[in-house]
């Protein structure tokens, strides 16, 4: 069995998947580190789920899915922030309510997709992604959105880190905690949108939380954690695409999903990071 099945480097869908998936992985990993520090994994997951309402609506009216995903995620981030709750329990509840309403809309739009356009595959591709079916035309806008998100993070790096570690100290130092929180949610929605389009809405949490959680167990400094998270994320996407491509040879004529391999790699890395830390402290 070959490590690189024939045609891996020349295939157009593979190249697109690697570029878009890699971009999504980098942005998700960077934003994910802050999300894990801030304890907002649920918000990250909810935004991705809610963005699927936009994705399914886009299928319905026939515009680019990315516009739908993006619009809905930013809108949901705005609604969550508008309620502006500081206590963690209450914040989770608001997130949950927005999530429930958003998924309700997804249900409705997907139902319309099925009845009016007879595309039964919409539910699967919106929720679980279809990486090898990404059109090459969206590479440029995707990378643009990703670069924008990274620029925002770079611009607010220090205040964001301070707010994430200790909001009270940040407030004393004159940081606008509310504004930083809103910016973080916006960047978060950009990041999850990118990964929702590649590995699907409900699995985009994998790229967001997995690499960041593993990296934070390994690194002591935030900068190092971000670097490690990016490496893990990129590695998972590349490995996932490669294995999925190879899997066409394992089960004749039927490939295994990319998303499965990406999640599997991330989970193994996360478990390994725990062992590595235990080995170091022992």
């Amino acid at each position, binding site marked *: 069995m070959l490590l690189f099945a024939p045609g891996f480097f020349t295939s157009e869908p593979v190249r697109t998947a690697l570029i878009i998936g890699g971009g999504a992985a980098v942005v998700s990993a960077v934003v994910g580190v802050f999300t*894990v520090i801030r*304890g*907002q*994994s*649920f918000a*990250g*997951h*909810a935004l991705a789920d809610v963005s699927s309402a936009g994705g399914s609506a886009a299928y319905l009216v026939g515009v680019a899915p990315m516009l739908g995903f993006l619009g809905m995620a930013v809108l949901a981030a705005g609604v969550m922030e508008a309620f502006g709750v500081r206590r*963690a*329990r209450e914040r*989770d*509840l*608001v*997130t*949950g*309510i*927005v*999530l*429930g*309403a*958003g*998924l*309700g*809309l*997804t*249900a*409705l739009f*997907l*139902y319309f997709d*099925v009845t009016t356009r007879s595309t*039964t*595959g919409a*539910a*699967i591709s919106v*929720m*679980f992604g279809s990486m090898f079916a990404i059109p090459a035309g969206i590479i440029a806008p995707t990378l643009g959105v990703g670069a924008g998100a990274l620029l925002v993070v770079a611009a607010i790096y220090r205040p964001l880190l301070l707010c994430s570690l200790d909001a009270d100290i940040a407030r004393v130092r004159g940081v606008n905690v509310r504004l930083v929180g809103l910016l973080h949610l916006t960047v978060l929605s950009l990041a999850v949108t990118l990964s929702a389009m590649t590995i*699907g809405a*409900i*699995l985009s*949490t*994998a790229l967001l*939380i*997995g690499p960041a*959680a593993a990296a934070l167990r390994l690194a002591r400094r935030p900068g190092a954690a971000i670097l490690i998270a990016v490496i893990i994320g990129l590695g998972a996407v590349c490995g996932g695409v490669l294995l999925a491509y190879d899997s066409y040879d394992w089960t004749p004529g*039927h*490939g*295994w*999903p990319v*998303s*499965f391999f*990406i*999640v*599997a790699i*991330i*989970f193994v890395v*996360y478990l390994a990071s*725990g062992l590595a830390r235990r080995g170091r402290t022992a």
Partner: protein
Amino acid sequence: MFSSFMTNTWAVASMVAVVAGITGFFVVLRGTTFAAHALPLGTFPGAAAASLLGVNELFGLIVFSGLGVIGISQLGRHQRNDVATALTLITLLGLGTLFLSLSSQYSQAVYALLFGEVLGIGSGEVAPVAIISLAVIAATVLLFRPLLLTAVAADLGAARGISNRLVDLAFLSILGLATAMALPVVGALLVFSLMVGPAAAARALTGRPVLAMLFSAGIALLMVWSAIALSYWSNWPVGFFVGTLAAMCYGVGRAWMRFGG
């Protein structure tokens, strides 16, 4: 709408609503919203796995919700709760994508499992749902005091010798069981909305725990009944109505807390 083929739907949906309303009270009180979302969503691949192996669907669901409970509580020992929940969820869903792609004929059922397809529930599904409902309600009533105490004042509970971790685990197991039962009939999204919306509204209406729990179950019942009726008339999916009604419940509850009560 009340014809014979709808009888099972009404019965099963009502039982699910009562269970969701009662467990939802503690979901809101204990702040385990993410777990309440992750368990149903992470459990639904169990149905795909069961269909792949050719075993009973309920069996697959219970196994997967058990995996979810173990994952959340085990990873939660070394990790923040929300991260542990997220990692458990993605791992189960990752397995789910694999099972779904291996059993291609199953993809039609995904929509129903995620968003609910309550119209047309068979009579064979009524009995297991009734039994598990009773078990879940009995467990909740038995554990009522420790659940309440550890949620409101964890220190006080610890002082009385109640292990917070054990109560957490017990509550997660109750959630998992309720999830496995409700999932095939109402879908992952519905279970979650039914748990969160009514309980959030009930909490605004009264400060007394037992009363709030009963209110929560009552509101959940009303919500499910109106959602089914609306869905029957409009042909739109039930999940849409439940999600929207849950958000409205929460909004009304918040407004009531601020201006009314």
